């Protein structure tokens, strides 16, 4: 009987994650194109559905219908496996996200650690794609992606470490409960800023998009991918945007807490506000050079994060 209810719970969780994942992939791509359009004084997609809301579905259908091409000279096993290795961690990362007080697949004791360690696996998928493609652009993109991920992992971890020191927990539900009186962004504004900047860098998005810099690397690691395999990379990218925003909401913006509206609505409002911000940043700034990117991380973000951590620790000891 207990086993049965466990199985049902697992199936329901997978179904729920897939629903959130699909709707987000469609909505986030639509939002990106709309925001991009309006910032450039255009309207963006307008033809499919109301104000182009179904454009993502139409594009997805087109990509599914396309032939899957495996170019000559690629490492077939790795080439086929890579998109899925970049994609499945994003589904696993959903497990610890607290959508509301009751809606969370697993409330792990080390939820925060789990989230950030799983997110590292996706980088391996990107590197596999770049290596297996047997193409200089893909390989350059993958190498840059690895360098960037390693560099920006440090400020991101240091910034969430100050949250952990304040809340004394790695459990996400406890971190949200700690914020019942005030949001942690009020106590840790610097950590929040560092987290958002590093998260944009981790997502390989403009202004930190050197791994897929269109003007120099064609499309970076997914140059050789087309059809559904490309779509998988694409969806993983947009799911990652949602996930880092959801994590920022949980850690700094009080999670699902908020007046009047139900918790889950508050969660999605806060998350999509951050998604909007990340998209907005993309259309506001030009791309950084690789050396600027590295010096920004090592000479500015990391010392600042360390300093912030030091001050946080000092005050925690004091009071």
């Amino acid at each position, binding site marked *: 009987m207990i086993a049965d209810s466990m199985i049902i719970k697992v199936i329901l969780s997978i179904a729920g994650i897939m629903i959130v994942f699909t709707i987000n992939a469609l909505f986030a791509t639509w939002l990106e194109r709309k*925001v991009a359009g309006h910032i450039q*004084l*255009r*309207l963006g997609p*307008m033809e499919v559905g109301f104000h182009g809301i179904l454009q993502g579905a139409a594009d997805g259908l087109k990509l599914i219908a396309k032939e899957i091409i495996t170019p000559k000279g690629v490492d077939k096993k790795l080439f086929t496996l890579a998109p899925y290795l970049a994609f499945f961690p994003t589904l696993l990362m959903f497990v610890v996200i607290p959508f509301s007080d009751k809606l969370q697949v697993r409330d792990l004791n080390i939820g925060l650690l789990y989230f950030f360690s799983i997110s590292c696996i996706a980088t391996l998928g990107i590197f596999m794609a770049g290596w297996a493609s047997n193409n200089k652009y893909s390989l350059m993109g993958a190498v840059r992606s690895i360098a960037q991920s390693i560099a920006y992992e440090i400020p991101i971890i240091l910034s969430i470490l100050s949250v952990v020191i304040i809340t004394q927990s790695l459990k996400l539900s406890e971190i949200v409960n700690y914020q019942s009186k005030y949001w942690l962004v009020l106590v840790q504004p610097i950590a929040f800023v560092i987290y958002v900047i590093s998260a944009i860098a981790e997502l390989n998005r403009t202004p930190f998009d050197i791994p897929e810099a269109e003007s120099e690397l064609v499309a970076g690691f997914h140059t050789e991918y087309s059809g559904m395999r490309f779509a998988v990379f694409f969806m993983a990218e947009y799911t990652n945007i949602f996930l880092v925003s959801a994590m920022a909401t949980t850690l700094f913006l009080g999670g699902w807490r908020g007046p009047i509206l139900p918790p889950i609505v508050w969660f999605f409002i806060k998350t999509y506000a951050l998604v909007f911000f990340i998209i*907005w940043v993309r*259309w*506001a*700034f030009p791309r950084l050079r690789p050396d600027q990117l590295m010096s920004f991380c090592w000479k*500015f973000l990391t010392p600042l994060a360390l300093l912030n951590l030091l001050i946080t620790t000092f005050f925690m000891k004091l009071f």
Partner: protein
Amino acid sequence: MNASYFSKVNIGIKTVIKGLTLSISYFFKKPVTLQYPHQKKTIADRYKGSIRLKTNEEGALKCIACGSCEKICPAGAIKIVSFTPEGSKKKQLSEFYVDLGLCIYCGLCVDSCPVDAIEHSKVYEVAERKKDGLILRLDKLGEKNV
């Protein structure tokens, strides 16, 4: 760690704020583009579109089939077929073709016409699926070239 490091950080923060405010101000501005098939730009009065034949008050073509437009056309896009009815000295137009694939929209035919029978229309959507579709017969009024 010298003074230029902090001044660089200062400039960085300022430019980040500037970039964000500028792009969001554009976000709330009215789009400048037109949704083309649904909205169309108003065409200027003197726009030189594809040519068409004029008619007089009774609705008959003004063209006297003199052939000066055919002669002056630098691209050889116009072809006129005419006939002379029995008991008359005047030629009459039977077919007037213009090949839009050859036409360079120079307007010399309009200028050269002695009876002011040709004019530029405001038609600019002249794309066709087949090359033959670009050859228009202008003496048959109606349909596309009005």
